[in-house]
Structure formats: structure tokens, C-alpha cells
């Protein structure tokens, strides 16, 4: 019953959201804007649900006294501190913003910067020249990397009155060869997204409803 209702709602709303694009009438635009607002409300509730699930998971680890359970206390403490600070002092200034600037932002940036080391070791394995394909990957990767640093600007040659630099080559690769490959992928992904969206609207794709 609930599954059938969900599929009917998906069909009606999906169809409306699709055809509203071609009907520039104020009434239709009004409904469309209200639906987008409702979508934001549902997203807010979905996020709360996700956090509740996170709390349940970590509280379970603490309650069952699992190994490393005290790490879960750190996660719950961080979560609680942020929520309480936002509720008491607001979100624009004060301790909530201070926590973001001094705890979350630097730690998150460091976490992403760690990838530089792992990417370097992955590159060593991936870029070992074994055939033409790996050579193309290696050559383009090296030119783009060198072109983004000062050395790339310094490495330049005069050919027939034209200055050819690694930085220029890097820019050209990013704006031509890279664009061509990305565009080919993008067109394919776009068509795939449209096909999947149509499958959802007509009820052929139901995996988002779960198994029950």
C-alpha cells in the first residue's frame, strides 16, 4: 500500500516537475516554487534523520562497551557541542562559528591534504610506463602538474618567434583535450541521468524505495 502510494506520488510529481518547464504560467510557477520549498524542508528532516542514525550507531557502540567506544564519545561530544552552541549563541557569530573556523575547517583541510601523499604513491603505481596508454596518462599528468607551478612558467622556448611554455601547454591541454574528453563523458552521463530519471517517474526504477 505505502509502496504503491510512493510510486503514484513519484509519477504525478515527476511528470509535473518535467512539464512545468514548458508552461511559463504564474500559477504553475507558484506550485513549482512551493514544491521546491517543500523539498528543502524534507531535506532538512532527512538530515536530522541521518544525524539521529549516527547518534544511534555511536551510542550503541558506547553502550555495548565495544573496543574504541570512547572514540564514539568524541564524535557525540563534538556533535552535541555544535548543536548547543548554535541553539544558545546563534549561527552567525559566536562559539558556533569559532568552532567551525578553529576545529572543523582546519581539520577537514588537513584530511584532504593527506590525500596528496596517497595520491603520490598511487601515481607511482599507475604511471609506470608500460605502454602507449600509460605514457599518454603520464605525459599529460606531468605537463599539467609542472604547468601549475613556477617552474612551468620558467621552462619556455622560443620557436619561430612564438614562446612555448609548459604553463601554456598545461592551459591548452586543460582547455582543449581535457574539455573534449570531459564533454564526451558529460553528454553520456547526461543521457544516462535522463534515462534514469524517466525510469523513476514511470516506476521502473524503485531501488530508492528499499527492499520491503
Amino acid at each position, binding site marked *: 500500500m*505505502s509502496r504503491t502510494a510512493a510510486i503514484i*506520488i*513519484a509519477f504525478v510529481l515527476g511528470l509535473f*516537475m*518535467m512539464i512545468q*518547464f514548458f508552461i511559463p504560467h504564474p500559477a504553475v510557477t507558484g506550485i513549482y516554487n512551493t514544491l521546491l520549498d*517543500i523539498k*528543502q*524542508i*524534507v531535506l*532538512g*528532516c532527512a*538530515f536530522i534523520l541521518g544525524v539521529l542514525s549516527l547518534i544511534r550507531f555511536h551510542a550503541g557502540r558506547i553502550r555495548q562497551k565495544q573496543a574504541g567506544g570512547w*572514540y564514539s564519545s568524541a*564524535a557525540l*561530544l*563534538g*556533535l*552535541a*557541542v*555544535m*548543536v548547543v552552541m548554535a541553539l544558545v549563541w546563534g*549561527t552567525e557569530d559566536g562559539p558556533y562559528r569559532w568552532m*567551525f573556523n*578553529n*576545529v*572543523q575547517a*582546519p*581539520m*577537514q583541510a*588537513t*584530511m*584532504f*591534504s*593527506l590525500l*596528496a601523499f596517497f*595520491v603520490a604513491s598511487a601515481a607511482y603505481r599507475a604511471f609506470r610506463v608500460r605502454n602507449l596508454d600509460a605514457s*599518454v*596518462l603520464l605525459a*599529460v*599528468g606531468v605537463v*599539467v602538474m609542472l604547468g*601549475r607551478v613556477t617552474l612551468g612558467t620558467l621552462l619556455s622556448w622560443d620557436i619561430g618567434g612564438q614562446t612555448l611554455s609548459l604553463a601554456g601547454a598545461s592551459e*591548452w*591541454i586543460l*582547455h582543449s583535450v*581535457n574539455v573534449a*574528453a570531459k*564533454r*564526451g*563523458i*558529460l*553528454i553520456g552521463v*547526461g*543521457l544516462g*541521468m*535522463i534515462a534514469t530519471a524517466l525510469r*523513476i*517517474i514511470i516506476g521502473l526504477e524503485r531501488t*530508492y524505495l528499499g527492499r520491503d
Partner: protein
Amino acid sequence: MHISSDIGIWIAALGTIAIFSFLYRENPVFRFAEHLLVGVSAGYYLVQYAHSGLIKKFWYPLTAGGNYWLVFGALLGAMMFLKLNRKTRGWGNIPVAFYVATGAGYLIPSVMKSMVLLQVGGTIRNPFAAGNSAGDAITTIVIFVGVICTLVYFYFSARRTGVVKHVSRVGMLFLLAGFGATFGYTVMGRITLLIGRFQFLLRDWLGVGI
């Protein structure tokens, strides 16, 4: 050298070092920092999404603007919590269906425009149009040939023989060059972040003049 006396800088520096300690090996300090980051991030985004979804899009328009249709949104949002109970979990799919279907319906015309039509339009351009330099003409031709070859590479409904084989091979080389460029670009982005973190530790925290 002038070490910072700002408590915020100290906390950020200790957090940074705790995360960097993973480079040695996984250790309790890193795991603590990792869990703290998860908790703080969840708290931050919870507040942001709840504020934008429930206060800005529901409470203000309802109380100040009198838009009572949004009550349906609140009801749908509340139905989301039915997923927490095994018996009522099925009804929790109604808001999920709403969210997915509105997204899917909106996506079809917008994706068709931005990811297909505009991309095709940007690919089929006159390389010898007035004002184009020789370099522009070459770039336009390279993009056109590259997109066609890449699309042929992803076309699996024809046997890879004859012309199709050669064209798809060129498409694969374009893809590899594209992946190489993306890889190089990503690596440099991460290295920039890394340099930023070291600059923070040396300049902002330890006060080393660099």
C-alpha cells in the same frame, strides 16, 4: 619566531598535527581527531540544513507570509522519521518518493539543456569564424574530433572493427589524456592544501617568518 597565544590557533594546530599523525601510522590520537571531526561536521551541517530547511523555508514563510501549503512539507518531513520504526518504515518512503521524483522531473529538462544540448552546441562550432586565430581553429577542431571519438568509444552497440575500432582507440587516448590532466590538476589542488596547512603551522602557529 613568535609562537601564537591565540587559543583558537592552538586548537587548530593540535587538530592539524593529530590528523597528520596518520602519515606515521593509524594511532589513537588520529582516531580521536577523526571521530571529533565527524561529530563536529555532523553538528555543523545539521544546524545548517535544519536552519535553511525548517526555519528559512518553513517557519518564516508560514508565520510571516502565511504560506500554509508548507504544512504539507512539514508533514512529509515528519513522515521521514517513520523510517526509524521497522513497522512504519514503508510509509517513510513517501517523502523519499517526493524528494526523488521532484528531483528527477526537474532534472530531465535541465540536464537535457545543460549537459547535452549546450555541450553539443559548444562542440559544433566553426573553427574558421571571423576573429578566430589559428590557435583557436586548432583548439575547436581538437575538441570536435575528441568529443566524437570519445562518444564512439562509449558506443557499445557496434562491433569494434574497421573504422569504429580506430576511432574508438583515438577516443580512448583522448580519455586517458583527460584523466591525466584531471589527475594532475587534482594533485596540484591537494598539494596547495598541504602547503596551506604547513604555512598555517609555521607562520600562524609557530610564528616563523616565511
